């Protein structure tokens, strides 16, 4: 879903650039609470994995393909603020080195991936987690559901931006219908990949999964450094 240069007009691109810059500033502050010596390498790995996974376009029928956005997956793995930074780094590398996603559209893409996809994915995940039984086995399922929802929500956000500053006169209702239709299909792929990755990581190292933290508190033995105690009591 990388938006190229030219789809949106300059004012809209500048506005999304401002939104993206503000989001990164907020994420840099918020990520401090999510990252320590143990989880910082996870952030690098998650960004690298999302970059790699985004190279794999899977077919969704009728000559169309899709790839992972990774917003929900990253949010559940490393927390939403760190995930926003990870996705922004991926988009920066893709845009500057690989000519994938426009350069004037970088703010638009960061807004869509880091804010909308990560935000929607995390909210859906935490929303379900709040009302469902606190079981570790549910983490991959809920991450999958969050991933499924995050893709069409991000597609709808693109249509909203297109309504503001699209460079072509296109009927918005049919654009929205087409975008939602295809991105629900892509979302199913996103959900499967996300659930698979989360079930692997939860099986191997649940303590490294941010979205599993509330379920592990008080259950596992851990070596408490001053930092973990301070976090647990804050």
């Amino acid at each position, binding site marked *: 879903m990388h938006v*190229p240069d030219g789809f949106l007009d300059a004012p809209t691109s500048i506005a999304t650039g401002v939104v993206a810059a503000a989001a990164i500033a907020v994420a840099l502050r918020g990520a401090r609470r999510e990252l320590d010596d143990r989880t910082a*390498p996870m952030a690098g790995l998650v960004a*690298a994995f999302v970059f790699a996974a985004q190279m*794999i*376009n899977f077919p969704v029928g009728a000559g169309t393909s899709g*790839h992972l956005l990774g917003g929900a997956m990253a949010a559940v793995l490393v927390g939403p603020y760190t995930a926003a930074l990870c996705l922004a780094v991926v988009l920066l590398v893709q845009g500057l080195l690989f000519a994938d996603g426009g350069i004037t559209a970088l703010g638009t893409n960061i807004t869509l991936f880091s804010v909308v996809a990560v935000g929607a994915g995390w909210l859906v995940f935490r929303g379900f987690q709040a009302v469902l039984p606190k079981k570790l086995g549910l983490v991959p399922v809920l991450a999958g559901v969050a991933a499924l929802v995050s893709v069409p929500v991000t597609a709808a956000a693109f249509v909203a931006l297109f309504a503001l500053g699209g460079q072509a006169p296109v009927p918005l209702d049919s654009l929205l219908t087409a975008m939602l239709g295809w991105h629900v299909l892509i979302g199913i792929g996103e959900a499967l990949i996300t659930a698979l990755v989360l079930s692997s990581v939860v099986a191997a190292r649940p303590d490294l999964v941010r979205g599993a933290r509330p379920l592990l508190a008080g259950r596992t033995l851990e070596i408490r450094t001053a930092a973990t105690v301070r976090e647990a009591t804050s």
Partner: protein
Amino acid sequence: MRTRSFLLAGLLAALLLGGVASYYASSHPDGLEHVAERAGFLDTAEEHAAADGPLAGYAVESVADDRLSGGLAGVVGIAVTLLLAGGIAYAVRRRVPQDEDAG
């Protein structure tokens, strides 16, 4: 699983995806491109400013073999992304108190 083993396994998975499996990825337009084409605004996309770059389009410019070219591009992208995101994460992380005392 030890943390180091886990991280190495994750990195290996990423390298296999980007360096090997990416060759088999679908080359059909993605959802947005497809919709843009049908709706008639795909041609509003401008030529990418970095379209002539040495890695543009996930291919290393000077490598003729498609499989090798794409795989190398994937590995380079993974390395750059890992270092950049990992570096930012290390820079903003909470330091353990010992570090603060030492500093």
